[in-house]
């Protein structure tokens, strides 16, 4: 549904996007993940036809964005970053304008308007001026305008930024409910969001894709390498030596806690086996095993690592 080939975008001498290629199949929810300034918004703006690519080709539903921007715009709904809408219009007035402009037939406009407002939870603020709404409601108006004409492709730039936790959950479930029918490309710099909503994820840094995987695949990578935290009561030197020499321990970090016990974090690829062996050793030596816990590597850690590895490779 979305096809991007060798996309490059330069602003003056700055290269915002440096050769990005990806495809999003119909009905998929694709997450675009990257730190601020990594080129997410630029990629999205090119997709919407806001500005053309410097190099490369972008097609939506088989239509080249540069060749027929109007046809492309009819097929997409776009929520820009930091949605600022017309503050001096009421919600209904603004959404009706969207419906008109986006070619919702006048016969079904009324019904569609109600439907979208209902779905986005806007019914109770319909008559209020957009400028007077809270950030959360404004974000919902932004999503409502993107959905208005039942676009085949939704492009959402940071859809949950600035919302409170309950609203975030609502918006996420709204986005998820669109899967299958609508193709969604959403950007975020919040990692859990991706694993919760997206079927596939791309990680972007410095305008390049540094990793692309399914959400499950990412979780797998996360589980593959983990850390174990242990707290053991026993003779310090011996305990540490035993921990260091346990097979598969790559790294040991002691956490100085002044409670008489030894607290350490071990890194190893052999998670469960290592823990089983360690438990046996500790009990066998007659030490006290106060705590043993596996620390899953968070997506944040993965992300930081991917970015670091990539930058090292580039250097």
């Amino acid at each position, binding site marked *: 549904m979305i096809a991007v080939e060798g996309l490059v*975008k*330069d*602003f*003056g001498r700055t290269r915002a996007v440096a050769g990005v290629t990806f495809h999003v199949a119909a009905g998929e929810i694709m997450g675009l993940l990257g730190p601020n300034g990594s080129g997410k918004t630029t990629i999205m*703006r090119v997709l*919407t*036809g*806001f*500005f*053309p690519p*410097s*190099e490369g080709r972008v097609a939506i539903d088989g239509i080249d964005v540069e060749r027929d921007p*109007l046809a492309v*715009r*009819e097929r*997409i709904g*776009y929520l*820009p970053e*930091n949605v*600022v*809408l*017309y*503050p*001096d*219009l009421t919600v209904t*007035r*603004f959404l009706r*304008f*969207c419906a*008109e*402009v*986006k*070619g919702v037939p006048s016969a079904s406009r009324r019904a569609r308007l109600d439907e979208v407002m209902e779905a986005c939870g806007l019914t109770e603020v319909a008559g209020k*001026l957009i400028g007077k709404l809270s950030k959360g409601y404004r974000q919902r108006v932004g999503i409502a*305008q993107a959905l208005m004409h039942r676009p085949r492709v939704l492009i959402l730039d940071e859809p949950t930024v600035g919302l409170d936790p309950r609203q975030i959950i609502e918006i996420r479930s709204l986005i998820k409910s669109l899967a299958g029918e609508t193709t969604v490309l959403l950007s975020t710099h919040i990692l859990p969001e991706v694993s919760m909503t997206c079927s596939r994820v791309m990680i972007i840094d410095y305008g390049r894709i540094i990793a692309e995987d399914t959400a499950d695949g990412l979780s797998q990578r996360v589980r593959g390498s983990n850390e174990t935290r242990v707290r053991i009561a026993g003779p310090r030197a011996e305990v540490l030596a035993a921990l260091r020499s346990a097979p598969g321990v790559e790294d040991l970090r002691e956490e100085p806690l002044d409670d008489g016990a030894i607290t350490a974090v071990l890194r190893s690829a052999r998670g469960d086996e290592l823990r089983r062996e360690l438990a046996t050793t500790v009990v066998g030596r007659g030490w006290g095993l106060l705590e043993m816990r596996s620390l899953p590597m968070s997506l944040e850690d993965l992300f930081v690592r991917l970015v670091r590895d990539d930058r090292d490779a580039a250097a």
Partner: protein
Amino acid sequence: MRKELASYFAGPLVYVVIGAFLCVTGLQFYTTLNSFVTIGFGLNILEHFWEEFFNNSIAFYLLIVVPLFTMRLLAEERRLGTIELLYTYPLRDREIMLGKFLACLLVFLLFVACTLLYPAIVYAIQPFDPRPFFARYLGTVLFLASCIACGLFISSLTESQLIASSCTFIVLLLFWILTWNEAAVSSSLVTVLSQVSTFDHFHTFSTGVIDLKDCLYFVFFIALFLFLTLRSMESRQWRGRR
């Protein structure tokens, strides 16, 4: 365009400015008429009065007020970021531009319609031949549309409404006073300048005469600035392209 209209009437700006506009033109109407009546300038007194009134009141105050309205047309969209929405809706650039232009023009037609009150008052007291007023109002509308087109263009260049309004005002004023002091420049230059000056072309209308040349001048003026606006809106397309 309807959104544009709705946002005009949602705010107090329109009412305040219409009110002020009518106050000022009304005052001018009263004092100028008064002086014309008391001093007397000959037989054709009322014709001169209307000429004076359209030139110095209606057109001049429009020239001051138009920048206040055109400044926000595109500059505000850019500052708010809503231009990004418009540009990604299935709208052509020229549709966006014409929507803005026509909405603004419509608001001002309302202004101008209010000034019909003045000739109506005089007509009630002393009936006159209404035909020259077709020319005067045609001239006013053309002049108005020119000002708006120019303001729209300048508004498309900047994000700052202050810059947009002050630049528009200066440009409009410049075109208006180009031949202000005819003695200051050589006579050949005056002939050239008077071809470019909005004042000289408007003046013909204010005397109650419709000249095709003047109509064409304003139409060209409008078309030129609308064309420039379109190019300015498209400039985002070639930024960053090689």
